[in-house]
């Protein structure tokens, strides 16, 4: 991603009203790596500009939601200030971290793997091969605390979401849907296809920050045996696990 591309994304920026406590800065409408890079870059610049009245900034696939305190600033004032920042993109910031995440794709942990295989015309082993071959970009966190939207999946294993969501799936469930993959960070309902599980805590209140990943990080999955999964799960349970051990060079 070079400065010219960032510049192009930012020239298309639009301000959309989100009431009187937030302002949407939209750089595009698609799920797209270059848009995402522009969003992450703009979020960092707004953050470091330290504008009065901004409460927090939420980067998403293709826009920023700037939450503000209407007693300290106005949306019109913020639009002017952010327009000033748009004119000066910083090029090619590569601050994202790289992670290797162990995941077990064995049947107990992968209730949808057979169906995904059937619908894509692959064997279950080939689905796993496809899922572990790619390096994924973390577009954004949302839906659940620490829940990472990552992409893009290889074309061969892209499927729409499940028609009926599950009411409750365990934390650590590795899931795919459309062009994206994710890990369910806490137990809860889930509409994506579950193809594996990781013992790595993606959300931990004791962590600083509590979310393992940040937008802009890169993630790849490594297939592990059930034994390796159990050993790592035990480490997590007894406090001996260090997330830094998953960082790749």
């Amino acid at each position, binding site marked *: 991603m070079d400065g010219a591309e960032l510049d192009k994304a930012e020239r298309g920026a639009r301000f*959309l*009203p*989100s*009431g*009187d*406590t*937030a302002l*949407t800065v*939209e750089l595009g*409408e*698609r*799920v797209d790596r270059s848009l995402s890079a522009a969003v992450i870059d703009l*979020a960092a610049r707004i953050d470091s500009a330290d504008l009065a009245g901004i*409460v*927090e*900034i*939420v*980067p*998403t*696939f*293709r*826009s*920023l*939601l700037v*939450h503000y305190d*209407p*007693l300290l600033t*106005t*949306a*019109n004032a913020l639009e002017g200030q952010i327009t000033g920042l748009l004119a000066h993109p910083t090029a090619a910031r590569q601050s994202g971290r790289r992670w290797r995440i162990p995941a077990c794709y064995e049947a107990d942990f992968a209730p949808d793997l057979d169906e995904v295989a059937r619908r894509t015309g692959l064997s279950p082993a080939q689905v796993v091969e496809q899922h572990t071959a790619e390096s994924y970009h973390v577009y*954004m*966190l*949302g*839906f*659940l*605390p*620490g*829940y990472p*939207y990552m992409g893009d999946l290889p074309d061969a294993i892209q499927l729409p979401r499940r028609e009926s969501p599950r009411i409750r799936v365990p934390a650590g469930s590795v899931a795919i849907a459309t062009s994206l993959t994710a890990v369910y*960070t*806490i137990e*809860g309902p889930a509409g994506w296809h579950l193809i594996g599980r990781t013992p790595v805590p993606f959300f931990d*209140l004791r962590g600083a*920050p*509590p*979310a393992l990943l940040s*937008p802009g990080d890169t993630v790849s999955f490594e297939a592990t045996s059930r034994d390796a999964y159990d050993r790592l799960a035990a480490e997590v349970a007894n406090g001996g696990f260090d997330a830094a051990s998953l960082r790749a060079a």
Partner: protein
Amino acid sequence: MSATLDVIVPGSHTTVQDLGRVGYQALGIPVSGALDPVALRLLNGLVGNAPPTAVVEFLYQGPTLEVAVDSVRIAAAGCDIDVLGDPARRFPPWQSIRLTRGTRFRLGAMEKSACGYLAIEGGVALASVLGSQSTYTRGGFGGLEGRVLRSGDRLPLAQPAAEQRGEIRLAAAPDSKPPDRIRVVLGPQEAYFTDAAIDIFLSEPFAVTKEADRMGLRLEGPALAHARGYNIASDGVVTGAIQVPGSGHPIIMLADHQTTGGYPKIATVVSADLAAVGRLRPGDPIRFRAVSRVEAEAARRALESDIERRGRNTVPAVEGNGLNQAALYASNLVSGIVNATDWPSDGKR
């Protein structure tokens, strides 16, 4: 000795809430906090707390609690406080009262509001999680063990006793009746809807369905037609955003809403009207009126002045038996008598 309020009957969805967990939405962590932040701020003033202090919130049906501390000062919104025992006494909302150890009191059913509140002088002695004591039940953190209160819980209090003073009430309690029209700012995705859908949204009545909780209110009424499909690449969601999924029936996002969402948002409730929306109950009608963003910001400033004015304007409280306690003291009619609110009401003394 521990200082607690003991839960005899938990009520419905009773949780600890403050003004929310601000600054973590980029990590996918909802803000949470009181559905009616105006009530929270005014009640805290009545019991001498800083306005953002955590309170107990309950939905539709309040809890019954027992004072397990030497004395405590409380105030409620949304319902009366029924002090149980002999004689039973009833105190209206929006006034402080002081209760002593062993007293049981019930926060009754609410008829006009979905949410009620109990403020406690000094607040609760619970850990702050990411800067807030608010309970986020779906994530299982904040408040008391990240969950709703249950029978047998002992809610730890930050203060072992409440000094005696004249009890006070708001001279002008906030209007619990919802405004005729809830004000909204159109957008961010009003372009995803037909012109006819926008007209219907701003002219027709809707009603709150039973699918109403701390995450949001699903409305029923005429379906709103999308002009450009109903899936968008997820973007940020602010409290009060009105998203319209494929059914065409809008959902107003409330305190525990997800930080991002993939449905187009036709409009956003102005922050000055969020408390009124938070109080809506299933079956309640709701109509919308569009205002500009500048008007919305002005409405919020007006609300702040209103809260400040109401909070400053307190008068001596009416006693549970209908007598004005402070007036009685002033005229020396009851010289020497123990403050009525100090009497344990369970007949132990």
